């Protein structure tokens, strides 16, 4: 999912862009570069990696309310470094950005927070695991010595909404790629990347209409890297699906002039990942709508023939536009076809 690097770069790396985007594609300017064969170790790697340029803890949840309605929740903490180090105080070159959202069929609430590193306003600790920015928290409620991200308390608030959720996963995190080393392109760009797609969620959403008790599923990604993407890429479409049969599917398409590049991982119900070769996944927009003044696909056909998977998606709320400093579409979907289930789609670069 290193495509999301693109997003954070659009925002935080404006100076870097000014210095020349092309240069960034090949060298990481003193930042560490992910190398194959270096193992991911928990709980250490739940924490931040300031020597890498970019990192995020990205959680999406598909929920069902006690009122019978579908809801989606997003909680994201991005880290971006101006230099490959951490320092105490305002000198810290680490910058943090939080995005939170609650989506229902009729509403989409968004909040955004920013913070400097080094002063305690935002940060992540590995053990006990906690990620926070301002009053938003994603913190472990697991005992010491136990997988720190197996139990999570999650909260965020905006002007019109807040939520408090408890997350519980019965399986260990899933390492993407080769033991967490996830190659992203033919040029060898890569990231460290693991996911926890098996959370069961319960909690409360506070919305303008009142509190709603919710239950459902959530998916956490933690990824860090230093290398941004090629300048020819104009955006991406990213899919995370919870299948009713218990499998999970992660896939994305990078859009460029030549029609794009797709990649996918099929995760068995027991958590075993099956990385799919490039181009195994096919995604086709079926319908677009005008959202926040842009033409955005709101129905997709997603096919992974190797797994006999062919579904069509429908957005819970087509207006799920993230009107943050860098804006994009991110919202819950349901899908039907050879398989049924729900999940999240993220679409960027539709400006």
């Amino acid at each position: 999912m290193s495509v999301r690097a693109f997003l954070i770069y659009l925002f935080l790396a404006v100076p870097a862009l000014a210095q020349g985007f092309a240069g960034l594609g090949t060298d990481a300017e003193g930042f560490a570069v992910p190398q194959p064969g270096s193992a991911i170790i928990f709980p250490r790697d739940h924490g931040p990696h300031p020597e890498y340029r970019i990192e995020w803890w990205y959680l999406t949840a598909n929920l069902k309310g006690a009122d019978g309605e579908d809801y989606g929740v997003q909680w994201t903490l991005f880290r971006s470094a101006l230099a490959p180090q951490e320092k105490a105080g305002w000198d810290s070159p680490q910058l943090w950005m939080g995005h939170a959202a609650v989506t229902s069929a009729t509403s989409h609430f968004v909040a955004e927070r920013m913070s400097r590193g080094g002063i305690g306003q935002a940060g992540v600790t590995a053990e006990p695991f906690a990620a926070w920015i301002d009053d938003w928290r994603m913190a472990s409620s697991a005992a010491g010595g136990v997988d720190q991200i197996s139990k999570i308390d999650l909260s965020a608030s905006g002007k019109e909404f807040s939520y408090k959720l408890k997350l519980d996963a019965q399986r260990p995190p899933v390492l993407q790629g080769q033991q967490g080393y996830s190659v992203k392109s033919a040029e060898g760009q890569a990231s460290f990347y693991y996911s926890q797609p098996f959370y069961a969620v319960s909690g409360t959403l506070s919305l303008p209409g009142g509190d709603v008790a919710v239950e459902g599923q959530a998916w956490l990604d933690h990824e860090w890297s230093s290398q941004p993407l090629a300048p020819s890429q104009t955006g991406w479409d990213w899919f995370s699906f919870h299948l009713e049969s218990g499998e999970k599917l992660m896939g994305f398409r990078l859009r460029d002039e030549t029609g794009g590049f797709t990649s996918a991982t099929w995760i068995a119900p027991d958590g075993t990942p099956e990385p799919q070769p490039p181009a195994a996944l096919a995604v086709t927009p079926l319908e677009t709508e005008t959202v926040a003044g842009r033409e955005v696909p709101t129905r997709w056909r997603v096919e992974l023939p190797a797994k006999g998977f062919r579904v069509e998606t429908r957005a819970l709320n087509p207006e799920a536009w993230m009107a943050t400093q860098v804006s994009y579409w991110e919202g819950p979907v349901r899908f039907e076809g050879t398989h049924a289930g729900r999940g999240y789609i993220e679409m960027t670069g539709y400006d």
Partner: protein
Amino acid sequence: MMWRSGLAALLSHWRRKPLQLAMLLLGLSLATGLWSAVQAINGEARASYARAAAVLGQDRLASLARADGARFDQQLFVTLRRNGWLVSPVVEGEKRYGEQRVKIIGIDPLTLPPVARQIDVMAAEGGLGAFIAPPGLFFVSAETARRLAGHAAPPLRIVDSLPAGTALTDIGIAQDILGVGPRLSRLLLPPDQLIDRAALSILAPELEVRTPAAESDLSRLTDSFHLNLTAFGFLAFAVGLFIVHAAIGLAFEQRRPVFRTLRALGLPARALTLLLVAELSVFALIAGFAGVVLGYWIASLLLPDVAASLRGLYGAEVPGSLSIRPAVWLAGVAISVAGTFLSAGRGLWQVSRMTLLAPAQPRAWARASERHMRLQAIAGAALLAGALLLAHFGTGLAAGFALLAAMLLGAALLLPLLLSWLIAGGARVSSSALGEWFWADTRQQLPGLSLALMALLLALATNIGVGTMVSSFRLTFVGWLDQRLTSELYVTARTEEEAAALRNWLSPRSDAVLPIWSTEGQIANQQVQIFGILDHATYREKWPLLTADPQVWDFVAQGKALMVNEQLARRLSLRLGADVTLPGGHRLPVAGIFSDYGNPKGQVILGNDTLVRFYPDIGRLRYAVRIDPEKAGKLREDLLTAFGLPAQNVVDQASIKSFSLKIFERTFAVTAALNVLTLAVAGLAILSSLLTLAGMRLPQLAPVWAMGLTRRHLAALELARSVSLAALTLLLAIPAGLGLAWVLLAVINVEAFGWRLPLYVFPADWALLGALSLAAAGAAALLPALRLLNLRPAVLLKVFAHER
């Protein structure tokens, strides 16, 4: 055709009398110019106050700060953010770069509310990284950039939206530069807050909410200064109008034959009036335009001094360069037109109702009229009585200026009658027939000259009054500096550790090391400085106490009482024994009130131990050092070498004094300049009035000439007359000027600055001024006198030949 010939006939007058035209245009441009200059200066200053008020949107945003205004631990910011308070940190302070003081404002661009975003950090070269990573960036106005040139400040980025003397930088950079550690001055509190969050009283009980300041402190503080300038502007304008009035009056009188002829040729009175209005409008527009140009030029000369004054007096930053404001142009031209028609009103009215058979001969344009003079004098007396009442019962700055205006105008209106009495006295003591004729003729001329003489009186009285005020102030200020600055050296350490080392190093090498530690806070909503002093002979012997308990020093040393400066005592109506509640809730009675000139802020002095007890975390960086003055220079050198301090951190008494005096001089440089200009305008007014009269006086002079007086003799008499009228006016201007000085010192100063100064008289200055004004009057009379000297006898004879 009729219109064109009419206009040509009217304009031909100016071709024949270019001097008169020049006088008219000059008077009008001068009046407009001085007025516009003041407007331009005030406009520039107000714009810069508005910029200052808008910095970080503080005119619209509430903020959180400590009640006493002191800085607080930045952990409070983190605590508040982590409990859902969407606040943004700000640290502020002053930093000296050589002679330049710069207000440093540190912000966090990531949490800064949009309304407070005056600069686009992301869009600037280098972006966010260059802004937050050392050495950081300074966002400054072009003016500030010029001032900082060559100093060791971070790289500069120039933006228009910031006031002069302010640098906007990253919060971490600002904390480093100011040396304040991880502390913040305040937190911006945008209105869009989460509803559900813990109370401030639980999270940060030491902070309180400050609502946005609707009006900036600066514009309130400096109001008096600008009112002062405006008053000067109007005075100059009024004096300028005297010239215009004289010039227009003359032109109308001299053109009476032309008017009559034009009317006789069939030009209707209406058309004639319209032509005159058109002519005057053109003149007014030309002069107004020239006046605004002149005004900008004067303003650009004065502005650096005004800026220095505002900085010295109020800490207000105004750029030293002017921007062109359309409002000033419009107002300048408008006031020029208004002034023209105000001066020409009577003439136009007369022309519009002139009968065809009216005498064509120019007659004395204002005839002796005892009744008119009496009425004027009664009005003047009423104004003076009003001034007395105002002096007694009025309060506030506006009343002070009303008092000033009533007094000056009253004195001016009384002038003709008083002069006529003095002249009558002169006539009584003169024995010869010629003497009697001289005085009688002088009296006869008085109405025509009275407007010009009133202008002279106003200018002279202002000059004497303002001069007396400035000189009294200077005398008091110098004496006060001697009392206040007794220590030989003033040392500022860069860090607390260095300060401790300095103390140890200095103790054996000096007679005494006196801490000058201070903090700032609020007392009854007034921002005040709180200083601590040691019980030492330095203070006991010299401190400039105005009124004090006999045991004031013991009480202060024992922590039983405090002292306040005069302005704070006046603002809060504090007398000896009154209780003062200091920031933090400490209460102590006032045991002494001391003078503190040049300081816009209130000040409280505590015993040093008390200060430290009340405010344990104050900065302890500044010290006064007592030592034999002969050894001070050597000690300063040693100190600089031993500690590697920057030169400006060790200052000797003489430099501070000269620095303070420099500020003082610049403060009054503007006043002096406007003074001289006003006097010059008054001189021109006399010249133009005399020129007016000279042409009309032939009928009075011809008989005297016919009786055997030479033209030379007559010219000498004319000259003597002008000079003696100016001398008499000067005589009357002295009491008016002293009255003015008293109002300035005892009313305006107290209201504007909060201190009352003793009045000293400087007769030597009057003598100089007198000589100057006599010379001016003499010079003004010279031209008409020379004309008389060279008058062809035939012209004088004609007076008898022509029917009047």
